[in-house]
Every structure is written in C-alpha cells, then in structure tokens.
C-alpha cells in the first residue's frame, strides 16, 4: 500500500482533512515498542483491524530508541500521510517531529503515554492509559491481597515504560517494590534468575512481571523455588489465561491496548472526513482493567487470538 497519487492532502492547513475524504486515506502508527513485543503486538493488531474495518491503509512502525522513533515520524510526515498515531514514552524527544507533522497539516493522535504533552504539541487527541496508572492499579490490588515484599521483574533494562509500571506499582502498594533485571530474549535464564531471587529472599510474597511471557516462567520459578509468592502480571496471552484459570497466576493488568491501536484510527478517519475530535482535549482512557479468576473465562478466547 504505497501512497499512490498522494491522496490530495498536500495543501496543508487545518482544513485539509475533508478534502482527503474522497481519496484513499493512509495513516501511520509509530510506537516505541521493540519488534515482537507482546504488548505492542496487540496495539498493532488493533490498528490494522481498524484499517481493515474502515477501509483505510495503516502502516505500523516502531523503534524503542527515541531518536529513531522521531525519525520514523519524520518519514511519515515526508510521505504525506493523512494522519499519524504516535506513542510518547519520551515526549521531549518527539516534540520536534510531532510539531513538524502538525505544521505540515497532518493530524496527530498520541497513544499510551504522554497525555500531558499531547495537546501542547498540537495533537488532536490522546488514547491511552498511562503506564504509571496501570502500575498503580496493580500495586493496589497486590496490597489488597496482602503482599508487602513485591518483586518487579524488568525484562528490558532502562526501558522507560517498564520503569513507569514498577514505579506505579510502588505507589499503589505504598512501599518500594524490589526490581529484578532479566532478559526477555532468554526466558530460560529469566526463570533461573527469578528462582535465584526467590531462593535468596524467601520473604518475597509477590512477583509482578511486566510481560506475559515472563509471567509464565515466573510461575514456574516460584514452584522451582518452593515459594508461595503470588504471581501477577501485565498483559495477557493464552498461557496467562490458563494460568489464571488454574490459579498459578492471580491476576493480570489489562490495559486493553487493542483500543490504543483501534480507536486512534477511527478518530483519524472521523477527523479526516468530518473534522470530529473525541474527548474534548481530555485523554480517552482504555484501562486499566484487571483480569482475574472472576472474569477470565469471558475473555479467554480473545486473549488467545491476540486481541486482548
């Protein structure tokens, strides 16, 4: 789906939107997820599903490095797309390129994080759930369950989104969580590392993982180490669902990130055709939802299909 014939939006100006309505609309989604990341895969799927449903073309790109991400946004601007969806884990780094898009008359919607800067940079809306707020939800739930010594497993060192989740968890819990670094690309070693931590500190009574793949090995690690710790995680996949069903994982924080992909495309299409905006400048929140044994069965099939 190369942008054939430039779809007539070239003129710029805020009102260019309606003119584009008759051509094929093409939108770009640029996120800070790394390739193959389970969370962002669902966002991608949401965006692509929206594209299909609405008959617009959606090009998804991502890079975890802020500078690269801004270059990808710049590429989308150069391609003269009809709208850009961008996740702003690092708003300062993206300011230039987002503003360039706005200046070129391309409507921008921010997703996931960066709600505060969204309007300031000229975006027409924000869909998301701040990672910190999601983390708070998890922390509060763990506190409810009686956890006091929580291990937060970071699977990518220095990743801002993951740090925000752990920070949020600390706030929700009311005490500092303990961090552990593992490598998402070597889950076997991750399992051993979590085992080590549980062996060396038997007082850990909850493990919070930030990725569904890590959640499964954390559950296995707990049983390896003979620990009674409660396992909770961010994000869902089929394994997590069955684990919640059989009780080895107590709950999962679901940001419903499918919506973070789907909704902005809808909003951009509406804007292009009808100059509609959503939320009146306020962010549209997608979560957090908590999936536990009470509601797991309803969404089991959806998560296995990769849309939750």
């Amino acid at each position, binding site marked *: 789906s190369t942008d054939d014939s430039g779809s007539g939006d070239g003129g710029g100006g805020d009102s260019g939107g309606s003119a584009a309505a008759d051509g094929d609309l093409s939108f770009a989604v640029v996120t800070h997820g790394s390739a193959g990341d389970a969370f962002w*895969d669902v966002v991608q799927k949401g965006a692509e599903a929206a594209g299909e449903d609405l008959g617009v073309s959606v090009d998804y790109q991502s890079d975890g490095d802020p500078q690269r991400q801004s270059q990808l946004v710049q590429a989308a601007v150069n391609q003269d797309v009809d709208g850009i969806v961008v996740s702003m884990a690092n708003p300062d780094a993206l300011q230039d390129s987002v503003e360039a898009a706005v200046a070129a008359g391309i409507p921008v919607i921010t997703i996931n994080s960066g709600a505060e800067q969204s309007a300031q940079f000229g975006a027409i809306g924000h869909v998301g759930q701040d990672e910190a707020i999601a983390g708070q939800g998890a922390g509060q739930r763990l506190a409810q369950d009686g956890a006091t010594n929580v291990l937060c497993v970071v699977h990518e060192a220095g990743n801002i989104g993951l740090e925000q989740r752990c920070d949020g968890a600390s706030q929700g819990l009311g005490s500092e969580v303990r961090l552990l*670094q593992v490598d998402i*690309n070597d889950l076997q070693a991750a399992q051993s590392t979590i085992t080590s931590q549980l062996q060396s500190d038997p007082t850990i009574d909850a493990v919070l993982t930030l990725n569904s793949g890590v959640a499964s090995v954390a559950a296995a690690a707990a049983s390896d180490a003979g620990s009674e710790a409660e396992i909770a995680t961010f994000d869902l996949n089929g394994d997590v669902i069955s684990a919640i069903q059989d009780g080895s994982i107590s709950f999962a924080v679901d940001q419903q990130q499918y919506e973070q992909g789907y909704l902005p495309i809808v909003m951009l299409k509406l804007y292009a055709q009808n100059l509609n905006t959503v939320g009146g400048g306020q962010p549209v929140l997608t979560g957090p939802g908590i999936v536990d044994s009470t509601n797991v069965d309803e969404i089991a099939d959806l998560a296995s299909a990769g849309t939750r």
Partner: protein
Amino acid sequence: MSATREAPVERPVRADERLAAVGIWRRLLVKPELGSLIGAVVILAFFSAQSDVFRGLSGIANWLDVASTLGIMAVAVALLMIGGHFDLSAGVLTGTTALTVGIVATELDQNIWVAIGAALVLALAIGFANGWLVTRTGLPSFIITLGTFLMLQGLNLGLTKLFTGTVVVRGIAEAPGYHSAELLLASTINVFGQPFRVAIVWWLLATAVASWVLLRTRFGNWVFATGGDEVASRNVGVPARRTTITLFMTTAAAAWLVGSITAVRLTSVQANTGTGQELIYIVAAVIGGCLLTGGFGSAIGAALGALVFGMTQQGIVYLDWDADWFYFFLGAMLLLAVLTNRLVRRYAEAARR
C-alpha cells in the same frame, strides 16, 4: 623414503640441556583450559563465601542450569571461532528452531519428534547456507551471518504472526510424543535429593565430544589449521571449505539442540527468543581462552566460560545487589575473571612471550 634413509640420531634420548626444569603447577597453568578454570574458581569462591544459598545444592542446580544451554552454544561457537569464523545468527537460530518445533507441533499438528526433526533439517540448511556463502564469497563471516541474523529475526516474527496471529507459539505440551521429548530434553535428575536439569548432561556431553573431535581427530586438526592460516592450510591440502561449512552446520546443530530444549521445556516460545544471545556465546568462548582471530582455543575452556557467565549472572542475584547496578556488577565480575586468569598465566609463563 623414510625407510631407506639411515637416521643419524646423533644424541641419545636424554634430558635436553636446553630445557630448564619447570614445576608441574606452572606447566598446568599455561594450558588455556586451566586458565579459565582459575577464573571460574575465583568467581565460585567469591559468591560462595557470601551466599549460602549460592553454594547450596539448590543454588548449584540453579546456576548450572543457566550455564548449561549457554554452554552448549558456547562450545559450538568456540569450535567455529577456532576455525576462524563468527556466527552472529547463532542466537536467533535457537529461536528459529524453537519456533519451528512449536509451529510444526501445534499449528501443523505433527508429532513433536517430527517437529524436532524438521527443525534439525532447517537448522542444518541454514548452517550450510551460512558456510557456503562465507566460503564462496570470501566475505567475512561477521557480515554474512549478520545478514542471516537479521533475516532470521524478521522471519521468526513474521512467520510466527502468520501462523499464530500472535507473537508467541503455545501449546507445545499438548503435542503427541511430548512426554518422551520432555524426558530427554527437559526433565530433571535427582542428585542428593536436588533435581538437576537434564540439559546439564547435554552440556557435558557436548563439551566432551567437542574436545575429543578437536584434539583427537583429523577434523579437529583441520579446524585449528583453517583458523590459524587458511591459505597455508589449503596449500598443504586441508579441505578448508568443507571444514568451514561443517563448523557452521555444527553451530546450527547446537542451536537446534538448545532450541528444542527451550521449546519442550517452556512449552511456549516467543518470537524474539534468542536474539542478542550470540554475543554472550562469543563472550563465553573468549573467557574460555579462544582467540577471536582463530586458530587457538579449547572446548573445555568455552564450557568453563559459560560457567563463569552463569555463576556471575545468578550470583549477583543471590547477593541481593541493587538490580539497577546488575550490569555494572556483571561487567566488573567478568573483567575480574579474565584478569585473574591473565595474571595467573603471566606468572606461570614468566618471561615467555
């Protein structure tokens, strides 16, 4: 010819006056394997002294587990490095094979052994392609395997999403034949009441076989020669191309073994499994005394290098050091291990250069 010549051995076999007496210790310490053994002992002592869980049976089983799969790859990568080449695709290839096992077993509904067989064929084909391209084009293996590394990374993600719609292949445990596969690849063995992963046995086996091949067979001789000086070895009739291709296929086979172990053990495989591990394999081999320029090294050394890495990685966790500083400590420990090793060898070699 040698038979017809009168051999004028002028001097009887006696102690050569050109050799100074050297203690057994020094003689042993000069060997590359033993050098890395020192590093391993230092790290072991360091962590054991500070954490009783680390030195307990369950701790040992834990860090041996980490060292085992890493070690299988490190040994194969060491062979390849001795032969003068790199394989940057080795890490991601463990993911490719694990995903193949998963996809064939679950999406194509085959017996797990069929899936494992298919993964082997694929791995060998990729190894062959790597080797063939390297020997044909004469380009550095670093750049060729970087190309295959990136391509495989893309394939892993693209195909996984194509087959499963998500970034993870799951449900391997339901495949027919799973239990026999689990027994062989992912079970545990009780020693003194502590379960040890069977992968440790595979690691020891791989090390033993690689050592034997390297030191006791013709092929091993060719590996050293090809890595030491490819032109010279070809000039004396070593089939350097064949050796190189075989080495790439060996690395691929090791990746297949590790990938199968991963798939069977975790029963679900993420699309980015193994990415980035290739460097760690090379590091383990280098800690174990392999030369990056080829022609020198040992399989046992690489296995010990993997052990050093595994112990360090887990040991830091056992000591409960701040996780933010994890990589700092990891780096410091590795430098500590290689520097002690170096110091000891310097001492042993005295003025030798």
